[in-house]
């Protein structure tokens, strides 16, 4: 096929380029700009080289919030992925139950982040919240505003409530796409329920689960609003995840240089983990 050469076509790319420039490239470059310089306002900048990067990389505060972040993300992944698959497996495959379940499942996903945070804050208040009050009435010494364990428990519970549905919906879509013949063949072959799950359902859900894990990793790794509204990062710094810590540094202390450096490091960690993860998950696909 002969391609027509027409350089004017570049004009059509301009709108997209402008859009991407304004919503991604320029803001990012601003951050890069701050990350290598020191400023005291009045648009006066001094070159600092890699100083802020070194400072962040060696700072115990950053290590602590990064550690908390990984711990939080892994805990919610370990709960949400199996739980989501389990719920998807129990959902009806046909009939009136399907739309009912789907709507119920989608509900938490439709609630804005800060509303979720506020809801759970009130829900979990030890004196007047339904959850907090009930737990205390049952004899548990529960107070998420003062006890680190309780704060983590509440934050994780909130995230599980908010986001497990996403895993459920994706898994459910994966399950629905399995041809009935697979189940029939398994029945004929005398496969146990567990074998059906591990040999048919799980392999067929591999792609949607990859997406689910990736999305949940990214979202939870960048979580900000919900814990901010729920615990504000407290008690102390116990639930100050990376984003919360970053905002404290940038807006609370106005350390723009270190905050910008931290943003970039943060960004590269997310990028790197996603890339490694995706490559690992997709490695086997090439052999097929």
């Amino acid at each position, binding site marked *: 096929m002969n391609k027509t050469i027409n350089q004017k076509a570049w004009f059509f790319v301009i709108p997209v380029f402008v859009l991407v420039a304004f919503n991604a490239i320029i803001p990012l470059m601003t951050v890069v700009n701050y990350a290598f310089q020191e400023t005291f306002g009045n648009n006066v900048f001094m070159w600092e080289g890699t100083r802020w990067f070194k400072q962040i990389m060696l700072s115990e505060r950053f290590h602590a919030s990064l550690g908390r972040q990984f711990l939080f993300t892994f805990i919610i992944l370990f709960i949400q992925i199996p739980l989501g698959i389990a719920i998807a497996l129990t959902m009806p495959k046909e009939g009136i139950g399907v739309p009912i379940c789907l709507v119920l499942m989608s509900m938490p996903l439709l609630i804005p982040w800060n509303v979720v945070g506020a809801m759970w804050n009130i829900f979990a208040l030890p004196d007047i919240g339904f959850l907090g009050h009930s737990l205390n009435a049952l004899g548990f010494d529960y107070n998420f505003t003062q006890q680190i364990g309780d704060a983590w428990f509440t934050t994780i519970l909130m995230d599980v409530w908010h986001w497990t549905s996403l895993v459920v919906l994706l898994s459910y879509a994966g399950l629905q796409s399995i041809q009935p013949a697979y189940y*029939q063949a398994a029945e004929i072959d005398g496969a146990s329920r567990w074998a059906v799950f591990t040999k048919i359902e799980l392999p067929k859900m591999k792609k949607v689960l990859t997406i689910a894990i990736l999305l949940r990793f990214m979202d939870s790794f960048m979580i900000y609003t919900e814990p901010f509204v729920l615990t504000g990062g407290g008690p102390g710094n116990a639930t100050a995840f990376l984003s919360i810590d970053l905002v404290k540094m940038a807006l609370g202390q106005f350390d723009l240089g270190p905050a910008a450096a931290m943003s970039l490091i943060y960004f590269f960690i997310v990028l790197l983990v996603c890339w490694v993860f995706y490559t690992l998950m997709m490695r086997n696909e090439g052999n*097929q």
Partner: protein
Amino acid sequence: MAKITLKDLSHSYLKTQSSDADWAVRDVNIDWEDGGAYALLGPSGCGKTTLLNIISGLINPTKGDILFDDKMVSNLNPVERNIAQIFQFPVIYDTMTVYDNLAFPLKNRKIEEDKIKAKVHEIAEMLELSSTLSNRASGLTADGKQKISLGRGLVRSDVNAIMFDEPLTVIDPHLKWILRSKLKELHQKINRTMIYVTHDQTEALTFADQVVVMHEGQIVQTGTPVDLFEKPKHTFVGYFIGSPGMNLLPCEFKGGDVMLNGKKIETHTKVKSNNFSKTEIGVRPEFINFSSDGIPVKVLSVSNTGRHKIVDTQSQSGKIKMIAKASEDIPSGSAFLSFKKEYTYAYGDDWIIE
């Protein structure tokens, strides 16, 4: 090994049924003799697969009983019925190797490792899968995958019956022949009851000793390929089997005679009753000759297939196709046709009058 009996079997996918069309399968009564090679033949949507799934236990019929060797099995699951079934599209376990796929039904039944190994190798040898045994099954081509599906159905040697649900749909034509003769060969070797569902008459007629023809949920005829050809019990069998199919012409029954356009036609049997809303005369193109006297027709066209000529003619009651020898001269314009009496049948409401 068992004789399979279906008694007054009907199945509907709907909760309530108001007309015949609501039933996927209706009033089926049939015995599948032990060790027989059967083909279940019919167009898409006639209920073949439903019937097969009822026999294997994947579907519980709405009404009726299933008996294996006169023992009720209606409430047993596929494993308890000990049935092997192969589906239209290849079903393989993606994450397993070819070997593990073939061994899977045996492993689930807790058979000793040595026996599994021997059996899998035997089946792999037969299906020419030996060289790929250690490969991952998901990497195979469509026919490779379907061979695995076939293999999984064949590894168990103690099954009551093996059912094939249009298993060669995705296979290349040249391989189809090979696999079909393999199945036939296998049938002779292991002597299990085999039921082969297909909508392809060639496939049915070459595979089976007995062909069961289904139409709109009913079994319309069971018989050898020759029976189906020479004496179709239902008009559907007449035109579905044979190429071209049977000629069916509207006619009148008058005092035991069959009248085509006022002209009496000799048929195989006399007509006794007259209580039909639709009356037809049926004769295959192979059993029609040109003659000096008979049904007046106009010759429309002649197509030569090499072995014989197919002649299209127009009579007053409709088009009639006939087959003539390749060497025969075909009259042009007007001619007369005569039907061979012993292969000419009267049909009342689509069923043969005997």
